[in-house]
C-alpha cells in the first residue's frame, strides 16, 4: 500500500524522542565561511583597506579639509606635505586630499554599481538559460556570444561614446559590458550543477522543483558566480577610470580618479608624486577588491 507522509513524520518524531538531550546546533555554511575568513590575514588586510577607502569616500564632506572645486592660482602644484595641503594641490590649485576623497565616491560608484547590475541581470539570464535549456538557451547564449566579439574596453568606449559623457552613462555602458561574461559563467555553472547526481537523488526522494532549487541549486550556483563577479569589480574600477581619463565618463570640474589622472598628466615632470596619487588610489582599490574576492572564493569553497 502507498503510505502517506505522516509515517515518516511519526518515524522522525520517535527518533527525536529517543535521543538524549538536544541535538547540537551544527556550524552552518556561512558560519564556516566566516570562521575561515578570520584566519586569512591577507584577505582581512584587503578588506580593511577597502573599508577605509569606502568609509573615507562616504564621509568625504566631513573629512575633506577644503572644498574640492575651490582652486587658487597662487597655490598651483604644491608639493606633498605643504602645510594645509598635506597631499599637495593640482594644476588649478585645488586641494588633492579633498579631491581624492570626493573622487573616491565617483570612482567607487562607477566601479561597483555596474557589477551589481550585471550580476543580477547576467546571473538571471545565465541560470534561466542553464536550467531551461533547449532553444531558449541557444537564443540567450548566442546573443551573449555577439558581445564577446568586442574587447570589453572597446565596447565600453563605443557604448559611452554613443550615449555621451556622464556618470549615469558610464554605469550603463559598463553594465552592458559585464552582463555577457557573468551570464556565460552562470550558464555553465548551472548546466554543470544540473547534471550532478545529487540533483537526481533529490528528485528521487520526492522533492519538488522549488525545494531542489532552494536547497541544492542556489548555494552551488551563486557562490561561483558571485566570486567571479567580485573579480570584475577591480576591472570595472579601472575601466570606469579609463573612460573618465578619455573624457567619456565623469566630466570636469567633478573629481574622479581617472579624470584627475588625466588632468594632472601635464604636471608629471613638475610634480610626479602628486600626479601619481589618483593612480595609486585606483591601484589600491582594484588590488584590494581582487585580494578580497580571492579570499572569499577560498573561504566559500568547502571542498578546499
Amino acid at each position, binding site marked *: 500500500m502507498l503510505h*502517506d507522509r505522516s509515517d*515518516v513524520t511519526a518515524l522522525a518524531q520517535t527518533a527525536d524522542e*529517543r535521543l538524549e538531550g538536544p541535538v547540537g546546533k*551544527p556550524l552552518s555554511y556561512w558560519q564556516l565561511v566566516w570562521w575561515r575568513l578570520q584566519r586569512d590575514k591577507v584577505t582581512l588586510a584587503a578588506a580593511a583597506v577597502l573599508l577605509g577607502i569606502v568609509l573615507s569616500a562616504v564621509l568625504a564632506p566631513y573629512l575633506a579639509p577644503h572644498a574640492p572645486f575651490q582652486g587658487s592660482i597662487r597655490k598651483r602644484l604644491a608639493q606633498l606635505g605643504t602645510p594645509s595641503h598635506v597631499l599637495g594641490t593640482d594644476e588649478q590649485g585645488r586641494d588633492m586630499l579633498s579631491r581624492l576623497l570626493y573622487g573616491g565616491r565617483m570612482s567607487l560608484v562607477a566601479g561597483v554599481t555596474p557589477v551589481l547590475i550585471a550580476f543580477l541581470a547576467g546571473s538571471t539570464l545565465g541560470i534561466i538559460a542553464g536550467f531551461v535549456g533547449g532553444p531558449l538557451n541557444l537564443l540567450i547564449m548566442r546573443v551573449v556570444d555577439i558581445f564577446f566579439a568586442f574587447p570589453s574596453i572597446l565596447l565600453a568606449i563605443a557604448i559611452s561614446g554613443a550615449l555621451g559623457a556622464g556618470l549615469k552613462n558610464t554605469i550603463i555602458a559598463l553594465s552592458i559590458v559585464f552582463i555577457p561574461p557573468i551570464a556565460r559563467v552562470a550558464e555553465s555553472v548551472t548546466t554543470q550543477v544540473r547534471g550532478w547526481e*545529487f540533483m*537526481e537523488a533529490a528528485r528521487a526522494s*520526492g522533492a519538488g522543483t522549488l525545494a531542489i532549487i532552494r536547497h541544492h541549486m542556489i548555494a552551488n550556483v551563486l557562490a561561483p558566480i558571485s566570486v567571479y563577479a567580485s573579480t570584475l569589480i577591480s576591472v570595472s574600477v579601472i575601466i570606469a577610470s579609463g573612460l573618465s581619463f578619455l573624457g567619456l565618463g565623469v566630466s570636469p570640474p567633478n573629481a574622479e580618479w581617472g579624470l584627475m589622472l588625466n588632468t594632472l598628466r601635464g604636471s608629471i615632470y613638475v610634480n610626479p608624486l602628486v600626479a601619481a596619487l589618483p593612480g595609486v588610489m585606483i591601484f589600491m582599490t582594484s588590488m584590494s577588491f581582487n585580494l578580497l574576492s580571492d579570499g572569499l572564493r577560498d573561504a566559500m569553497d*568547502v571542498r578546499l
Partner: protein
Amino acid sequence: MEHNGVILTVQDLRKYFPVRGGLLHTVQAQVKAVDGVSFEVRRGEVLGIVGESGCGKSTTARLILRLLGPDAGAVRFDGRDVLQAAPVELKAFRRQVQMVFQDPYSSLNPRMNIEDAVAFNVLVHGASRRAARARAWDVLNKVGLRAEQFGRRYPHELSGGQRQRVNIARALVLDPKVIILDEPVSSLDKSVQAQVLNLLQNLKHDLGLTYLFISHDLHVIEYLSDRVLVMYLGQIVEMGSAEAVSATPLHPYTQALFASAPSMNPDERLERPPLMGDPPNPINPPSGCRFRTRCPHAMEQCAATSPALLQVGSHERYVACYLYSDQTAPGSAMHDLQTDELI
C-alpha cells in the same frame, strides 16, 4: 496487491533517446536504450541486473523511478501504476522506492553536510527540522557512521566508502520497501566493496528490504542476488535463479559473460577473451537477435526475427534464444550444447 508477493512489476518498458544533429537540430536517429523490458521483483528478494556498460541497466532504474519518462510500458508498485500516478501519489511512491547512486562523489551535494543531506529527504516529506535531524542521526548510526562524529562533516572530508554509506543512509531514511542499487560498489576498492556489500546484506535482513541490484560485476551479483536478469543492448536475454544462471548459463551471451569473469583458480584462466569486439551501436542494432553479430551459434533465423523471452525447463528459467525454442530447425547448433545437462 498482486499475487504471490510481487512488489514491483515492469511491463514492456521502452525508452528511445533521440539523436539530434544537422543544421536544423532535427531527430536523425534513435538510441534504443531500453527496448521492451519486462520483469517482476518479489517482496524480500534481491534481483540482480547484469550487463555491459550501455546495455540499459541504469536507464531501466531511472525509468522505474520516473526520473526519466518512458516512451512505452508500465511500472506497477503494489499493483498501482506508477507512470500514470498524480504528483501526490508519485511522491508517496518515491518514498517507498529509493535509489543508491553509482558515483559517491557527484551524488552528494558538496555544500551540504551529511546530516543535512540525509535529513533533507525527511524534510521534503513534511517532518520538522529537529525530527528530521534526529531521524538522520538514527540512520547514519545504522549504516555505521557515528552521527556525533560525522554528522557535520562535508562530503569532501569522507572516503569513497563513507560517502557510499551516506548514500545508503539517504535511501534508508524514508523507510522504503524497495531500494534500487545502481552499481553501488563499482567505484570502491575491493576491501571497501566487501564492507558495503555486507552492510547492504545486514540492512536487508534487519529491515526486510527488497533490492534491485544493478552491476556489471558478476562476483558481486552472484554473492548478493537471489535471481539474476541479464541484459544486452536494451533487452533481457536471460533470467533465472542466481545459482542456476551462474552454474549453467544458457544464452550464448551469458555464457561468454561468465567465461570472461576472471576465475579464482589461476589454472582455469582463459588465454583469449570469450567475446571479441564491442557491442553493436544501439542506434542501429542488428536485425533479429541483437547478439547475433557476436554469437558463435548464430543461425539464419537469428537475422530474421528477434527471439522472444521464453521459459525453458521446469524452473523459472527464461531465455531469449532460438537454440532453446521449438522453432529451431532440426540439425542446428542445438546438439553441441547438450541442453539436458544444462537445466
